[in-house]
């Protein structure tokens, strides 16, 4: 394995050590530790209140669209701060670049609006 270089012995050692450690810890506790199960302990959620309704209820997922749009537009607005602070220095070129960017944002906003993504049905 010359093409991998001799430094790899360290990595191999790490991997072997990790496996030994992991298996040893889990193994020792299962061998040495006492095991006295009862009904309450074996319940999926030990020491909590019992389930009174299905654990996987359906809930409205409508908010995710708004959340997604917020993340996109909010993050993109963050690009405007550095430009606004340096407006004097960047001058006309910077203004044109930023207007291209804003118009792209505007188009996607129009798209989202027209597609009904902003309506809370």
């Amino acid at each position, binding site marked *: 394995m010359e*093409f991998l270089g001799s*430094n*790899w012995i*360290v*990595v191999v050692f790490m991997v072997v050590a990790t496996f030994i450690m992991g298996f040893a810890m889990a193994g020792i506790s299962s061998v040495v530790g006492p095991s006295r199960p009862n009904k309450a302990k074996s319940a999926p959620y030990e020491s909590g209140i019992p389930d009174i309704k299905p654990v996987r209820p359906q809930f409205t997922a409508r908010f995710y669209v708004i959340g997604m749009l917020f993340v996109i537009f909010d993050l993109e607005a963050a690009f405007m701060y550095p430009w606004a602070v340096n407006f004097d220095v960047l001058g006309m070129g910077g203004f044109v670049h930023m207007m291209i960017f804003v118009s*792209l944002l505007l*188009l996607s906003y129009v*798209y989202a609006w*027209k597609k009904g993504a902003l309506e809370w049905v």
Partner: protein
Amino acid sequence: MTVHLENPDWGMVLPQLIVLVAAIVVSLLDAFLPKERHFTVITGVTLAGFGAAIVAQLSQRGETGTTFHGLFQLDGLTVFLNLVILVAAVLTVLISASYVEYLDSKMGTGEFYTLLTFAVFGAMLTASAGDMVMLYVGIELTSIATYILTAFAKRRTTALEGAFKYFLLGLFASAILLYGMSWIYGSTGSTGLNEISASLTAALTGSEPNAGMILGMLLVIVGFSFKLAAVPFHFWTPDAYDGAPTPVTGYMSVIPKAAAAVAMIRILVQGLESLADDWTMVLAVLAFVTMLFGNIVAISQTDVKRMLAYSSIAHTGYMIAGIAAFRLIDGMAGERSISSVLYYLIAYTFMNIGAFAIVVWVQHRGDGTTLGDFAGLASRSPLAALAMTVFLVSLMGIPPTIGFYAKYYVIVALLESNLLWLAMTIVMASAISAYFYLRVVAVMYFQEKSEDTTGRPIVASPLLNLGIGVMVVGVLALGLFSSPIINLANDWTNLFSVAALAMGR
């Protein structure tokens, strides 16, 4: 103090700009146009956009340069790959138009083409990236659009299952890829591919590569192998290909694969050329396993779509074998290796999308995709059976089809770099593949359909027939007249002169 804003060379990015504008226009048309005019107008606009981009790309032939501070590089590789991607995109539009409108996925033509155009845009960015960051953005844009397209038939659970597997494993692959890129950045101090190359060459004169560089290289190879569906990173492929709507399967077996292949070439050949002795070895082993596995498992498939999925894994192996031939035995760079991969990509585009187009065609008649649905196709529709035979024979690699020439160029490149064993594996794998490709042909011609299960036939748009016709002609003609394509592919070597120029300034 005034900051000089460098004005990018917009002419250099013209094809990409056209596709981007087409994507935005298509999405707005989707939102504003009345539903009944979607089919004609949006299909037309998409095709026009791709056509204009092809013209713009052809006019850039022979031009070189970098812009956007080196993020963007124009060279022979860019031109060729963008042409492959755009041609594949046009063919995808031709075969998917009526499928999306009438079959399986009634979600909307507009959304389908918006996603497709953005995916193509991402693939084109990958092909023209001069920087690892740009490469990653392009790959991700393609991948995310492809995940959604895979789930496009959202009422069918197999589509959702395939898309979900593809999505999770794709994210995993992206993380590994980024991790590898960060190791490369850490060892060389730059994300620009030309800078990485220069810094590696300087660091490696007279000394061994350190573990960080090798680790980065290996992780990047693993990440791209996921995206390329190379064994042993192929587990998502059969389910995703099987679940996706058939035209999408045709698309995702070509465009994201071409993007991943070009990204691999960009990073390994352009960036890590000094480590070629190491990565050619890894790729050779990867290609060996991929070819054998893909072909052997394809034997036991009874579904044509799934069989083509495994066959696409096998074809990934042939392409990786071409990249593995990069380093010649005396340390020289093999020019033919990458040209052979590029030629393979164009061949694969025509024959693979072609084969999926026939599956689409059969589905339009109300049939399914199993072997039984293809039984007796020759007596029901001789032309479709003939076209399918041409595509399968080409996938097998029998002259005079384009598939034969593609394999021939890869094998020549392998022999030049003394990888005789890999060349022999290609021949053996092709022999194995004859079984399952020819079985479909035999079923089409020599079996009768057991019972008439044909559902209500749906009229395909003439675009589908046109697309199949174009691909049959392409498969037969582009092989016999391959020299212009090979010449265009050979232009990829000017990548190195661009690199030298960029580092010289």
